[in-house]
């Protein structure tokens, strides 16, 4: 069996150094190789994909992207690595880990605990998406798209609209479209302050709504369509959603 490949993600250099030392101490008991380290989640995702890591040691408390959100994005990979969370002190996260039997280590980390966690991870224990969502229901800052073995992150703030198509969502930014494997209803719940439903199959960014226009005549009735900043295309507003939506573009 080839040695397992470990990636370290922590925003603090001393914490990364310490984990490397401890991994070194564990090496005789469990053969492994450190495939690299990253100072934040965005770099960490690219590193994990490029190195095809088996295990990731990730700090929870990081700038820009928390360790939990990082772990959620990992799940779009074809072969997501096992995740071991590391935290100095986060009462709420620790409670959630206990409840969901997710592996975690507390800083300062003990070599013995690290070894146990690594062995468990090497045996193939994996996280499920649902567990991560229940640990931290706070909305993500990015959507993640798996493309040719890499993870592409799309900041939530850049998304103009999301359209449901069969089992995928089309996610439209100013530059291009992405396909993500998510459900429109779940996105609507997670980001209720950010997106609003204008149609059975469509959510649009609230802050980009510039107004409404009389749309084309369909089935004998003239409907409304929504005008969004940064988008030429006008999206139809369904009669059912119109009462909830019509006040949004006004006064801007």
């Amino acid at each position, binding site marked *: 069996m080839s040695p397992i490949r470990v990636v370290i993600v922590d*925003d*603090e*250099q*001393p*914490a990364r*150094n*310490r984990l490397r*030392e401890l991994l070194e101490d564990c090496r005789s008991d469990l053969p492994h190789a450190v495939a690299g380290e990253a*100072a*934040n989640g965005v770099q960490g995702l690219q590193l994990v994909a490029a190195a095809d890591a088996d295990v990731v040691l990730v700090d929870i*408390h990081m*700038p*820009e992207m928390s360790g939990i959100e990082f772990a959620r994005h990992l799940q779009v990979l074809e072969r997501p690595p096992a995740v071991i969370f590391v935290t*100095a*002190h*986060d009462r709420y996260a620790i409670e959630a880990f206990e409840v969901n039997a997710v592996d975690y280590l*507390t*800083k*300062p*980390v003990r070599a013995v605990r690290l070894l146990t966690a690594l062995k468990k991870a090497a045996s193939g224990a994996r996280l499920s998406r649902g567990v991560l969502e229940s640990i931290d229901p*706070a909305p993500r*800052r990015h959507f993640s798209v798996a493309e040719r073995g890499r993870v592409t992150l799309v900041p939530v703030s850049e998304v103009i609209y999301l359209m449901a198509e069969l089992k995928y969502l089309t996610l439209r930014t100013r530059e291009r479209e992405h396909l993500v494997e998510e459900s429109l209803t779940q996105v609507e719940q997670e980001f209720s302050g950010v997106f609003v439903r204008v149609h059975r199959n469509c959510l649009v960014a609230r802050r980009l709504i510039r107004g409404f226009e009389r749309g084309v005549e369909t089935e004998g009735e003239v409907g409304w369509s929504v005008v969004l900043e940064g988008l030429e295309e006008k999206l139809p507003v369904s009669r059912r959603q119109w009462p909830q939506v019509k006040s949004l573009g006004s006064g801007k």
Partner: protein
Amino acid sequence: MQSIRQNHLPDALPDFRNLGVISRILLSVNALALLFAVARSREIGEFAVKVTEIAGSLEPVLLAAVVVLYAVSPLLERLDYVQGLAAVFAIVLAASAALFPLQTYIGGSDEFRDLAWNLLCSASATAVVAWYFHLRNRAFSPAISEARLQALQARIRPHFLFNSLNAVLSLIRKDPKRAEGALEDLAELFRTVMADNRQLVALRDEVSLCRQYLNLEQLRLGERLRVEWRLDPAADDGLVPPMFLQPLVENAVYHGIEPGIEPGLIEVRVERRSDRLWLQLTNPYHPDYQHRQGNHMALANIRERLQLHFDVEASLNTRIADGRYEIGIAMPYRTGP
């Protein structure tokens, strides 16, 4: 300093130069006068007349007494409580007696024609106000220890302790000298945290404590943490509540530096303008991270301690300007004995 180990603050005269104390005296004596007027009036029409009469006799004496107390306040502070109280009574009665000729001159009411009656009224009003300050003192001394306990919990986040220990561990094998220095800073910091923190300390000491704290944070945050001190040497001796700046600096790191990938600057500015001490602390503002708890607790805690020490003469304000979070504190500049 002999009071450090006692559970209650000893009885002490209020600070007659404190704005809060002065307004409390003026308000309570006038409230007493109103009560007195109510008691003396048989009908509503009479009440207004009584109030005017009493005010005419009362206000000159009251104002004179307050002014004299203000003037002799430093002398009173040297006396113990009972002597001081006797001195206050003497001052009030003297003021009352000295201004008595004025009563007959401006014609006042019949009620205040008698010197003995005048002195009796002054003495009882003084007694009531003294009793009020005595009770207030008693009510607030447990509050100070309570605030101290509360502060103990809020001061150093466990998050900081564990991260620092972890950073020290990371140094032990490669750079034992730096590890030693870091542990010494940590020990010093906790010695202060665990000390009895009811007495004011010199600003200089509080600043050096903050520097030790920031050294430890620098260890783990590296170049992400930048600090700029703009200190005024004239403010060094000013007395401040202990551990009043450190929690604010800790907040600045937690809310201003940790959520950012790019380096962030914490700026502390201290200035003394005649008898006031001004302090301003700013850090980068990250609107997305406002859900992180703890900020309001530390602020409320410090505001309360400032109020316990300086009453209305201290203030703490916060605002967000130019993408930075800003805390401004003003308090009287005082030096130790």
